[in-house]
């Protein structure tokens, strides 16, 4: 296990912002990201001209982004448009700040997949397996969930608990794209996309952008709002089975376990301290795999664990309180990190977790990351 204990609570999130979520064919990534940036700058009350670090994800050209925002940073990082870069980007930005490479980093993410009619399969993502028709991240997750059903007896009704809980949270979030409540029966009767997964197991595809502004603990005192601290993080990649994209024979269990343990050890928290979980939910099974890897339940028991509203506000582990990727917005983890900040600030209104002190973010993917946030 690495020793990053000296970085505990040294870096703060001081500003967050997002656009509206939906379909915005009249703009582009730069236009969306600029709106989110303006909102984040206003949120923390700093001058945009002090920002000397720029991280962009799913935004075509970093220099154009800097031009649009009118900044010449000292530190820039570009991440590819994969749905696993948010955790990696936040950790890299924290490290850049902790080593003095930048004083304030703006992390920007924009997605215009709705207007561009992105499919996430077929010729957009060529692979070895195209001749057999095996394509899309959803199909890979269906392949994993079938294994979970076969190995552990997990049912689609148990899986439905994830979609139902996350949608319930979206009904409480005025910004969410999908706000009509759903039931387990709605999940069970939705059309198949890749059986055993149905429409309500799949994330949304929508346009939008997110921005987070990070700085060091000392500088965070000057921000308009109480800072949220990055208290722990951990990670592990799973590349040796990459021939089948977005797939892991063991549900990423070892990687999630390691990332979770590292982040909790660094933050000095245990499972019972975690007031809310922000869990990458590209597809509903990912949430089950995450709960097992993180140790909220033993491997194979996530189906039973989520029964009866465990993941809903008021349950044992409120999860994706903004509605997640399944019902709020497909911001590939970035919006979940914003929600973690808002929960810790107590800004979440009807969906607020009472007395929220510790929030964990996890992305269970070929690049697994866990981040623990606490109140500053």
């Amino acid at each position, binding site marked *: 296990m690495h020793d990053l204990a000296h970085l505990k609570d040294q870096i703060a999130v001081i500003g967050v912002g997002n656009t509206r979520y939906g379909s915005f064919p009249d703009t582009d990534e730069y236009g969306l990201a600029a709106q989110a940036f303006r909102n984040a700058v206003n949120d923390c009350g700093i001058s945009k001209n002090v920002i000397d670090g720029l991280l962009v994800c799913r935004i075509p050209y970093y220099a154009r982004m800097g031009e649009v925002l009118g900044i010449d940073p000292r530190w820039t990082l570009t991440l590819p448009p994969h749905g696993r870069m948010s955790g990696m980007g936040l950790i890299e930005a924290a490290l850049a700040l902790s080593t003095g490479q930048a004083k304030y980093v703006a992390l920007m993410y924009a997605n215009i997949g709705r207007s561009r009619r992105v*499919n996430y399969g077929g010729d957009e993502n060529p692979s070895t397996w195209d001749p057999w028709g095996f394509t899309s991240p959803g199909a890979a997750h269906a392949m994993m969930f079938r294994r979970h059903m076969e190995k552990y007896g997990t049912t689609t009704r148990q899986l439905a608990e994830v979609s139902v809980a996350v949608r319930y949270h979206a009904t409480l979030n005025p910004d969410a794209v999908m706000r009509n409540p759903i039931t387990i029966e709605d999940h069970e009767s939705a059309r*198949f*996309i890749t*059986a055993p997964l149905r429409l309500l197991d799949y994330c949304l595809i929508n346009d939008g952008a997110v921005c987070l502004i990070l700085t060091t603990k000392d500088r965070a005192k000057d921000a308009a709002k109480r800072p949220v601290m990055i208290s722990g993080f951990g990670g592990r990649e799973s590349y*040796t089975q990459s021939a089948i994209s977005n797939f892991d024979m063991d549900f990423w269990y070892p990687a999630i376990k390691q990332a979770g343990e590292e982040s909790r050890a660094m933050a000095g928290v245990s499972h019972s301290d975690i007031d809310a979980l922000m869990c990458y939910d590209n597809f509903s099974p990912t949430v089950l795999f995450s709960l097992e890897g993180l140790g909220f339940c033993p491997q194979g028991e996530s189906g039973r664990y989520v029964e009866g509203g465990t993941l809903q506000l008021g349950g044992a582990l409120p999860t994706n309180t903004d509605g997640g990727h399944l019902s709020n917005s497909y911001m590939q983890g970035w919006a979940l990190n914003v929600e973690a900040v808002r929960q810790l600030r107590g800004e979440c209104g009807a969906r607020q977790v009472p007395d929220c002190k510790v929030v964990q973010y996890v992305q269970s993917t070929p690049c697994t990351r866990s981040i623990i946030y606490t109140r500053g």
Partner: protein
Amino acid sequence: MSNEYTKPLPKVTALTKPFWDGAKARQLRIQLCRDCGDLRFPPSPVCPRCLSDNQGWRVTSGRGTLESWIEFHRAYWPGFAPELPYRVCLVRLYEGPVFVSNLVGDVEGAKLGAEVRALFNEITDEFTLPKFELVRD
């Protein structure tokens, strides 16, 4: 026949050509490290275990067990639309590596660990696709 085939065709490279030549000869081949014996598919430019360049091919038994299977109800390529829903499976070959393919025929009794065997489906004059079916004794 090739004029009518509308699904994605293999993109053959120097690395994958022996596999597709094998399929045409009704063999399921996987890459073999001649130095350390590592077996894998898809092929790699060097052995991921020992980094050797000395790579060859082994003809497998074409037998294995079912690790998972799914059913596509959406066609990401128009050529698959007439066949919806179609099944894709993940097979653990007896030789070790896993292989993605189509599960064809009667799937009554499909379960984790079920025995499967390859069959060879000539899709064009040039290409043959290995597919799998459940073994019924």
